[in-house]
């Protein structure tokens, strides 16, 4: 997928002035946040589950090769096949070959972020196979020819009118007088379009929320059931998954599933939780004739053993973006690649590099809410800080930032000098504030004063006044 992470600043500016987008984003907060809070409040063992989930994933990451091999042998035992792909190109080619093997014209797809990551749709189209997204949100943005802006709600940036507009434009058989007023009309229309496509598709491609080593199963959760139709009706079922999705056992998967829906949508469980156990067997009534797991690395294994390994615990629940005030301000597209919000601010530079995505770990106030709600207890701010440190030590921070920091620490390390300069600063800024007590324009701090006043200092520093008050004679502790 093309990235625009390097122009995050401009993306953010555009997003902030997009009236429609801002309206859509303003509706996010009450819904997701309240639902998660209620779901958590109703499950006293939620915090214990988080610890268990974290421990399971940490254990897997320490023994990833073992579990991946175990997973593969169990997939094979079930009659399926695992394709190991180092990068996007290998993954795309592998999937294309599977499509060719059944002479596929169309494929239906359940929502998959890793398919976005490898740019699968564009590739299939270029090679004469039509991909059809079947998750409603994903279908809408496919019609609008844009990437998802959120993980579990890919079209959260789109309003109802825009959906209707896309349907009227792209559904050529839609009578102009057919009403699309109510949400029900709109979903009916989508269903009318998608139903025959499920039946016509030669291949069904889904993502995977989990890969279970013990059973060789893959798991997807949906609320629309589109994943089930996708994977059962085609000749082949292709599961596209990145390798960190592995869990050791069925029981481990159930533990993390209990965390996933609660963190994502505040549901106890998603409406559909589907376990795929290979191709159809002789006695099965339905199911695909072949079952393929396309296992993608694409930079993940390079994260193992680094400061960013914990990121591989992520289960893509979106809780971090649902609670992030920066995401709420600019939306997902501003982040410029597949993964938005705080998890994207760590995962994106890990996968596509700090040169491209260096803004993302910087564009956080470190308010810590992402870490607070992350079901897998991923220390997101800490990892963003590590990216800032990397930028700093590799001399990639802007010279202005570096000079400012150097100056600040020079003074902070020299108390006497520091106090002389704060005295001067307090007096000067106080004078600038004048009788109003605030400064409306300060050339060196225009980032501040362009949008808000600078409250002026009281005139003298605490240390100065403290000494004058005679308190200071008590001396230091030493």
């Amino acid at each position, binding site marked *: 997928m093309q990235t625009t992470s390097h122009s995050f600043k401009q993306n*953010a500016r555009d997003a902030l002035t997009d009236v429609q987008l801002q309206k859509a984003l303003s509706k996010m907060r009450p819904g997701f946040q309240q639902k998660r809070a209620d779901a958590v409040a109703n499950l006293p063992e939620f915090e214990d589950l988080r610890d268990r989930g974290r421990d399971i994933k940490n254990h897997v990451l320490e023994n990833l090769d073992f579990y991946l091999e175990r997973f593969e042998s169990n997939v094979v035992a079930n009659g399926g096949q695992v394709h190991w792909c180092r990068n996007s190109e290998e993954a795309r080619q592998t999937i294309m070959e599977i499509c060719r093997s059944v002479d596929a014209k169309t494929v239906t797809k359940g929502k998959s972020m890793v398919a976005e990551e490898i740019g699968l749709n564009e590739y299939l189209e270029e090679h004469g196979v039509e991909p059809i997204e079947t998750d409603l949100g994903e279908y809408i943005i496919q019609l609008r020819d844009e990437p998802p802006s959120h993980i579990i709600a890919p079209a959260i940036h789109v309003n109802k009118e825009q959906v209707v507009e896309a349907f009227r434009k792209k559904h050529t058989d839609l009578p102009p007088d057919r009403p699309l007023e109510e949400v029900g009309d709109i979903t009916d229309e989508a269903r009318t379009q998608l139903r025959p496509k499920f039946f016509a598709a030669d291949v069904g491609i889904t993502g995977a929320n989990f890969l279970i080593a013990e059973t060789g199963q893959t798991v997807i959760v949906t609320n629309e059931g589109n994943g089930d139709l996708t994977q059962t009706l085609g000749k082949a079922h292709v599961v596209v998954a990145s390798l960190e999705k592995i869990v050791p056992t069925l029981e481990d998967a159930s533990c993390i599933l209990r965390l996933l829906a609660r963190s994502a949508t505040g549901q106890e469980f998603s409406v559909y939780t589907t376990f795929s156990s290979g191709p159809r067997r002789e006695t099965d009534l339905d199911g695909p004739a072949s079952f393929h797991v396309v296992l993608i690395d694409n930079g993940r294994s390079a994260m193992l053993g680094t400061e960013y390994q914990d990121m591989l615990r992520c289960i893509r629940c979106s809780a971090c973006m649902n609670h992030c005030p920066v995401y709420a301000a600019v939306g997902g597209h501003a982040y410029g690649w597949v993964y938005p919000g705080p998890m994207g601010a760590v995962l994106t530079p890990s996968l596509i590099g700090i040169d491209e995505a260096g803004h993302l770990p910087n564009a956080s*106030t470190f308010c810590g809410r992402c870490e607070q709600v992350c079901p897998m207890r991923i220390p997101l701010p800490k990892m963003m800080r590590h990216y*800032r440190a990397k930028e700093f030590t590799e001399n990639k921070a802007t010279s202005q930032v570096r000079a400012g920091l150097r100056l600040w620490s020079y003074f*902070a390390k020299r108390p006497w000098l520091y106090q002389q300069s704060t005295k001067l600063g307090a007096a000067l800024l106080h004078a600038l*504030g004048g009788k109003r007590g605030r400064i409306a324009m300060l050339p060196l701090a225009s980032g501040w004063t362009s949008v808000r006043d600078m409250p002026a200092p009281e005139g003298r520093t605490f240390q100065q006044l403290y000494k004058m008050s005679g308190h200071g004679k008590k001396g230091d502790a030493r």
Partner: protein
Amino acid sequence: MSASENARPRVGLFVTCLVDLFRPSVGFATLSLLEKAGCEVVVPEAQTCCGQPTFNSGDFKDSRDIAANVIEAFEGFDYVVAPSGSCAGMIREHYPELFEDDPAMAMRAQHLAKRTYELTSFLVDIMGVESTGAAFDGTVTYHDSCSGLRELEIKTQPRKLLAAVDGTSIKEMPGAEICCGFGGTFCVKYPEISDKMVTQKAAEIVESGADYLLAGDLGCLLNMGGKLKRLGARTEVRHVAEVLAGMTDQPSIGEGER
């Protein structure tokens, strides 16, 4: 440990650089609250900053130097108290992390971290203060600054003390726990995003109908106060210590002479 076990604890006051430079009245309010609670308070002269600006910018080396300064200046006290959840959080949560590769310093950092508190949490949780005996007329809304809230779990302590202030009532606002958009250097690096956040915050503060906005961190207060003033809002802005100490003779934040 309760106050009774240690009759008159020696407290090192960590003033914080923003209080020192912008609002010494908060430092004196803190001093008064600590003394009234029965502490012997000392202000080490060698203090400057906790090192958070460099730490959050990824300059770990300078942060370690600055942190070592703070450890040196404050390790002789029973407790270290700061009128800021952000600086206290830096010392408590991040100093030990900074010295992970230096066992001797890590031990000193951990020792200091364990004894370092934000003001309201120190008063309530350690000194067992139930009322500061202050009087202040007005309705206040309280913003939970991020570091204090999420690193130190400060939520009930300031509210408990404010509820005991004679004449004060609290009006909660819906997004009290949502970041105001200050974020240290974030507000100057990404001014447009910060503006969006603080604009939303200011609207919720005004909608709460409170006369005063209070918080425990000067950074957030300067940000929200600066926005409220730019918008011409009448809400006055103060650090919670000023109200709790009954020391509200200085003009509120961003206000001029009366």
